[in-house]
């Protein structure tokens, strides 16, 4: 097996993982695309060593490349394509609604973090979250609750 496809898969996975760990939706989608392509390439690589004829060998030995992984990869490529399109549509909808490209925190999670009385100052835009919580509670900020 040649080392090049294996290396390509490794690079795609590494770069994809890095991008998915970001907080920006567009980078996450790019990361998903890279990892998806890496996985599909791995399917092709699983067919074995390269260089065999696609259908019938000239030398009459009858050997040919294994078609099954290619069929599997084709199916997986189509699925990856469709889902990336869906993800892009979802990200666009998110941008329409919030005018922001960031992944937001779960409001309920923040409420529980707040119940502990240890609201994490590192979370981005804590004031926004507070407003969200106030919206949910109909005005009363949860800090005034029984801290138990």
């Amino acid at each position, binding site marked *: 097996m040649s080392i090049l496809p294996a290396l390509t898969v490794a690079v795609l996975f590494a770069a994809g993982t890095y991008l*998915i760990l970001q907080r920006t*939706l567009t980078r*996450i989608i790019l990361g*998903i695309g890279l*990892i*998806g392509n*890496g*996985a*599909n390439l*791995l*399917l092709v*690589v*699983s067919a*074995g060593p390269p260089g065999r004829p696609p259908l019938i060998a000239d030398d009459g030995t009858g050997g040919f490349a294994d078609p*099954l*992984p290619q069929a*599997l990869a084709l*199916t*997986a490529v189509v*699925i990856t394509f*469709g*889902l990336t399109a*869906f*993800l892009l549509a*979802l*990200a666009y*909808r*998110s941008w329409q*609604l*919030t005018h922001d490209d960031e*992944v*937001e925190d*779960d*409001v*309920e*999670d923040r*409420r*529980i973090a707040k*119940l502990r009385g240890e609201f994490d100052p590192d979370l981005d835009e804590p004031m926004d979250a507070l407003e969200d919580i106030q919206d949910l*509670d*109909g005005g*009363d900020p949860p800090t005034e609750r029984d801290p138990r």
Partner: protein
Amino acid sequence: MNALLAIPIVIPLLAAALAVIAIRLPTVQRVLSIAGVATALAASVALLIEVERNGPQATQVGGWPAPIGITLVADLFTCLMLVIGLATVLAVLVFAVGQRGDDHESAFHPVYLVMTAGVALSFLTGDLFNLFVAFEITLTASYVLITLGGAKEQVRAGMTYVVINLLASFLFVVAIAFVYASTGTVNFADLTERLTTLSPNLRTALALLLLVVFGIKAAIFPLFFWLPDAYPTARTSVTAVFAGLLTKVGVYAIIRMETLLFPDNRQSTLLLVIAGLTMVIGVLGAIAQDDMKRILSFHIVSQIGYMILGIGLFTVSGIAGAVFFVLHQIPVKASLFLVVGLVEHDAGSTKLSKIGGLVRRIPLAAVLFLVAALSLAGIPPLSGFVGKLALVSAGFDAQAYAIIAISLLVSVGTLFSMVKIWNGVFWGTAEEPTPAIASGEVVHTPALMTLSTVALVGLTVAIAIGAGPIYELCERAAAELLDPSTYVRAVQG
């Protein structure tokens, strides 16, 4: 060639296509949906009867022989899952039809039918790659269902849900590539034989990779975090079918994998540890929540632990307990969420602080909740008690005392949560009442919504009443699972 095997997949897909054509005719769509799911359910009942008499059935799609063509296989486990799963799908569908006044119903029906076909295919497939395709069909439909409406909260939670599931799918592709590269086949029956020839280390690596993939779908510890975030944002009928069915598809895949592909079972201890942690974390996570939907979502996670416990024991009685527990969970979880739907319809909210005293407004829903909740907590004589009893006695036989103690403690925690919901929703008064409660006017609940919830709770009661024969079937299914030779013979003819 047995056509019964293909009907639960093909008919819902066909109905979905017709429902897209009939997009402007809501009544036609409703009839198509219900007829499609009902046909699939009827076919799976017929299949269950045939498999019960004649053993596992297999068919090669397109007539190609086993290793090349796509195989559909049905053994007892498959059929039991299909029948209970499709019955739940049908009840939730009727509930959704009853829930009028919804702008997105024309999109809901086709997607819901596609999801049904995907779930049926995941149960019936006899091929690892086809299982991936089945997962993708189910998940793609679920992505649409969870974000249907496109509200801000749905888009936020839907994004997490889609990304985590896509990642799991890519890991699945990686696992398939490794399995194919090392064995040269993706057919389950072939893999049973060829995987044993691999080195133990390679086999363990493949097993763990697949466990991570299915574990994300099944929401086991530590891969569950997406579930309580994503599920509560969808419409209640959608959450009900997700809660009842989708995580159980993951559990189904774990049971299949552990018994059929890696029967030498090197993950037993790992699975028991995961089971304990899943149960405890799920039940503790529920305590801090203030929303009915979120409390119940955390309990989905905690109950998954019991199923993993049965698989981890890896004895006939353990697997039989796990199978029974899955079968009981599907309708119980779905019916609890349908009651949430009734509460939401009446009171306009599911937050415990905003509602209260609903027992006077919707007494029937209160009774239905009580039956389903006590069953979930495992109170005799309901079905949850039978499932937990089977698992506990299997645990005693295997001398796994620690995990049994944990599972009993978690039951107490479950009961605590259910009492908390009961007190907050049906008893007492609301702290900050919603307009509907404050006005004191009773909202009319459509008959179909109530009827379908009654039917689903009735199904859980029926499982409790018929527990003897059903558990016997589960034991036979477990014996079949632990001895794959009949399965392999059915596939290879």
